[in-house]
């Protein structure tokens, strides 16, 4: 039963704010405390099961034969020898799964196995299952695939210059996947008003998530005709949909997806993958459980990582550094498939306005198809690249105008509780506090620009940068009017509370978020709550662990379910004790009268007496984000219930002869609304500093353009953990972390996103610090030692893409959609847009 009678609410529930964002810290028993995660003991005992830890009787092992060509037509596939190998039980090719899929409805451009084209080295062509792993590998070697080579497209310039051959028969034209052109306000007037204008070109090389766990999937099609897929996925609901689509006519309700604990995700396990669909199909074919665990090299081919983005940015400012106009172009190297790329393209333009007030803004974005592993969402999704450009450019402007880079940022802060030029609704906004914290902590004012020498002759420098990030995407991936998150609670006579939710713990602690919030509302120990998550048969839909949505969306759904449970219990207890329900307090595993605390009962007794009165107790909660203010086409990417803010100061020590540098200290402040758990929030922030540092200094998904038997292929420089450089324990600097709490009314207890935002300022802060130390600009990420050295050698003391007209591809973006800003009286629609909304309304 579900009751939600406000009159029956206990005093804690009487808050005006729906999600208790104004609750006082000292009144909270569990929220904010450094309590263990609900699964902490399992994790430190080796008992947490990951997908490859599962096995079943009669289980087959599956391997994928992947393309050795970057771009080719499949002329023929001969699997006869492979199928005849002892132990081989099943062989699949593209014709067995002709229905395309893809994470976004607008780009259903993938197949479980390639149909007639391979589009990158690593594209899967054949799947083979055998009783032994070695037999499956051996069988793959016996498959004969004949290819007819096509011209390969290696990057954004080539894609722009060579519309033929097309990688896909959809998209804007040629090899252009997406073109976006959005103009907010009056750009010409904005630049007219400017007293200083800068134009710069930046490049951000792609990089990859590198989760420690290699993706794995176990699929079992049972004799009752039901399919179960256990997989290392961040998005079981979307995988469920993709499986139902490709495996049709198998009904969706015969498919169960269990997202097993992810061994790190970072966005890399957010797409439905070929291997997941192939394992399911193979199990249906063979009637046996089928497992595939990818090799590390295959994880590089799955990719979906950070897009390489070339950017041109033109900023106009007043003498005092106030931004009057921003004209931003981004060119994304999307790789072979759509993936999340449409959203990624918009994200390279969406959040520039959320940190600093931009009066007039023009964004143009282009995404190209190229013959490389597909790019997608990685921590920060599409926003770290423009953030790097903007934060370095602001540093240059401060330098041009003789201003303090911290001051110029403080003077440009976007106001709290406001609408941006592109109609994003800002709520709480703690960036100013963040900047002040890192400036004070690093002694920025005294130490910046001093060029102190270290004992070993290196020069110290400090760099500052800021960022913002979403607390979940305001719109779902496929259009629907349904909740983004659902939670069900079951209350047992033993006093056990079980929470069922589709959210997926990828290590960030989302299972624990459920425990903390429900424990706080019901006054019980969070570690005593049973959490059942990410199982499409058992748990209500939660869209998944992406876009930093879980704390706010799952959290709010959990809050609603828990409040409803408390209301029911309060009714039952009130009757039993003869006390008004609104006087009851839920705390310390008890329910008692606020005015006479001796009058009460244990939580378990409360459940029993309530069940006796009302019958079995269960409640539900769900959450849908607020309606977006942006009504123009493309306005669906960027809105969020709230935005987190971060500011960083990075200290570097640079060898002025060689360009070799180290990072001894980072000061990071992160406005997360409210920390639901102090220690876990710290872990998210430190992890972001680490991952951002890797991107800043060394990580790159860079390709070798080489010839193989006379054909041009692109292979990753060496797809291994050793050659893909990432920071080890030895490179990790000292981090001084400031948790800034500016509670937001849309978050549970005021909480916002934690864990993506603080990655973003690391890359520009490193580049800015290098400039402070040795006076060179590296306008490119990674900012490797070689590039610093090249900049030290260069006449203009700069390293980066060409500044001239040949720096970016020539693309006709067509006419812009023109949107009046809120301060021009705009209503969020584009005044020159064809009547889209009316059509939609019909």
């Amino acid at each position, binding site marked *: 039963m579900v009751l939600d009678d406000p009159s029956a609410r206990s005093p804690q529930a009487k808050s005006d704010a729906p999600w208790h964002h104004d609750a006082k810290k000292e009144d909270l028993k569990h929220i904010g405390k450094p309590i*263990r*995660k609900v*699964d*902490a*003991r*399992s*994790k*430190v*005992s*080796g*008992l*947490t*099961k*990951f997908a*490859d*830890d599962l096995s079943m009787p009669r289980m087959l092992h599956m391997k994928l034969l992947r393309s050795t060509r970057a771009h080719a037509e499949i002329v023929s596939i001969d699997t006869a020898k492979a199928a005849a190998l*002892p*132990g081989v039980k099943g062989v699949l090719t593209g014709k067995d799964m002709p229905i395309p899929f893809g994470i976004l409805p607008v780009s259903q451009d993938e197949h479980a196995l390639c149909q007639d084209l391979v589009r990158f080295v690593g594209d899967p062509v054949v799947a083979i299952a055998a009783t*032994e792993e*070695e*037999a499956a590998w051996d069988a793959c070697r016996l498959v004969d695939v004949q290819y007819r080579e096509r011209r390969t497209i290696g990057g954004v310039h080539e894609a722009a210059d060579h519309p033929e051959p097309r990688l896909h028969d959809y998209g804007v034209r040629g090899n252009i996947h997406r073109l976006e052109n959005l103009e907010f306000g009056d750009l010409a007037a904005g630049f007219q008003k400017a007293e200083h204008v800068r134009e710069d070109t930046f490049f951000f090389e792609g990089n990859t*998530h590198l*989760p*420690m*766990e*290699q993706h794995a999937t176990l699929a079992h099609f049972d004799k009752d005709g039901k399919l179960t897929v256990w997989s290392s996925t961040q998005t079981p609901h979307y995988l469920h949909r993709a499986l139902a689509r490709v495996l049709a006519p198998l009904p969706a309700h015969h498919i169960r997806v269990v997202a097993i*604990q*992810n*061994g*790190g*995700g970072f966005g890399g396990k957010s797409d439905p993958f070929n291997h997941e669909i192939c394992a399911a199909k193979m199990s249906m074919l063979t009637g046996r459980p089928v497992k595939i665990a990818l*090799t*590390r090299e295959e994880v590089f081919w799955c990719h979906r990582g950070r897009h390489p983005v070339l950017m041109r940015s033109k900023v106009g400012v007043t003498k005092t550094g106030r931004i009057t106009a921003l004209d931003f172009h981004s060119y994304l190297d999307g790789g072979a498939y759509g993936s999340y790329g449409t959203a990624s393209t918009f994200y390279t333009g969406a959040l520039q306005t959320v940190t600093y007030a931009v009066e007039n803004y023009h964004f143009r974005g282009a995404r190209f198809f190229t013959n490389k592993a597909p790019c997608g969402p990685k921590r920060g999704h599409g926003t770290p690249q423009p953030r790097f450009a903007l934060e370095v450019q602001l540093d240059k402007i401060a330098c041009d105008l003789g201003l303090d880079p911290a001051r110029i940022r403080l003077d440009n802060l976007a106001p709290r509780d406001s609408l941006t030029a592109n109609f994003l609704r800002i709520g709480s906004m703690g960036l100013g506090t963040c900047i002040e914290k890192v400036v004070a902590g690093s002694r920025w004012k005294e130490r910046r620009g001093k060029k102190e020498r270290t004992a070993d002759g290196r020069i110290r420098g400090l760099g500052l940068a800021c960022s913002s990030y979403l607390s979940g995407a305001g719109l779902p991936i496929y259009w629907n009017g349904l909740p983004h998150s659902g939670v069900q609670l079951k209350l047992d006579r033993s006093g056990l509370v079980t929470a069922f939710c589709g959210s997926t713990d*990828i*290590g*960030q602690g989302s299972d624990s978020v459920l425990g903390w919030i429900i424990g706080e509302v019901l006054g019980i120990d969070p570690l005593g709550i049973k959490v059942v998550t990410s199982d499409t048969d058992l748990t209500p839909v939660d869209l998944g662990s992406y876009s930093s949505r879980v704390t706010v969306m799952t959290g709010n759904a959990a809050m609603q379910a828990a409040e409803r449970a408390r209301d029911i219990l309060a009714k039952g207890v009130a009757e039993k004790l003869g006390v008004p329900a609104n006087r009851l307090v839920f705390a310390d595993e008890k329910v008692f009268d606020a005015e006479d605390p001796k009058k009460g009962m244990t939580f378990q007794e409360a459940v029993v007496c309530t069940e006796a009165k009302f019958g079995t107790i269960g409640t539900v909660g769900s959450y849908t984000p607020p309606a977006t203010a942006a009504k123009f086409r493309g306005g669906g990417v960027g809105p969020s219930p709230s935005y987190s803010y971060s500011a960083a100061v990075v200290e570097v020590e640079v060898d002025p002869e060689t360009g070799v540098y180290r990072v001894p200290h980072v000061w990071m402040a992160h406005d997360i609304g409210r920390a639901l758990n*102090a*220690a*876990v929030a*710290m*872990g998210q*922030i*430190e*992890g*972001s*500093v*680490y*991952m951002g540092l890797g991107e800043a200094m060394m990580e790159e998904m860079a390709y070798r353009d080489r010839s193989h038997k006379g054909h041009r292929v692109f292979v990753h420089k060496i797809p*291994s*953990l*050793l050659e893909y450089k990432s920071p*080890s*324990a*030895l490179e*990790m600097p000292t*981090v*001084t*972390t*400031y*948790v800034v709490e500016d509670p937001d009314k849309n978050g549970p207890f005021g909480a916002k996103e934690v864990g993506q935002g603080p990655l973003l300022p690391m890359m520009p802060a490193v580049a800015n610090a290098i400039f402070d130390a040795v006076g060179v600009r590296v306008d490119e990420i990674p900012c490797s030692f070689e590039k610093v050295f090249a900049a030290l050698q260069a006449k203009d003391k700069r390293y980066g893409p060409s500044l001239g007209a040949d720096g970016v591809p020539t693309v006709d973006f067509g006419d812009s959609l023109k949107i009046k800003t809120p301060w021009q009286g705009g209503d969020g629609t584009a005044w020159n847009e064809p009547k889209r909304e009316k059509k939609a309304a019909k």
Partner: protein
Amino acid sequence: MTDVKKVLATFLVNGEPHEVAFAPHKTLLEVLREEMNLTGTKHGCELGECGACTVQVDGTPILSCLSLAVDAVGKDVRTVEGLAKGSELTPLQHCFADLGAAQCGYCTPGVLMAADALLSCNKSPTRDEIKQALAGNLCRCTGYLKIFEAVELAAARMRGEKAQPSKESIHGS
């Protein structure tokens, strides 16, 4: 490969004998996970690059993905499953749980085995010694800091000190 003759051997793992038939080219990682069902030991590369598969052989941390199982016969093999004494976690495990040194938990078994080996021969490791000892264990979640702090806290508690994590490491500065 599939018709290689198996060998029969008895391994001493976490103090218990395990009699296993396995192909002689199998690594210790494969035999632990696939023949003994000790899946606590993880793999991240199977090329000796990430440290996720670290186990102890005669007290020394080794990469089980690069070690042939036959070489471990007759030796004392210890995996993450062998750390806790019954239901009681070791101080190192407790500190990892308390500080959130395990996020996704995938690298954790390997890190624990490397750190446990360090603490068994160095009661008061410095931060640099901890970094050196764990330099071969990649972690993508934590940024290593909570791991360092957990090892330091465990070392202090194992020395009998009533140590608590610093306020800065839990709540920030």
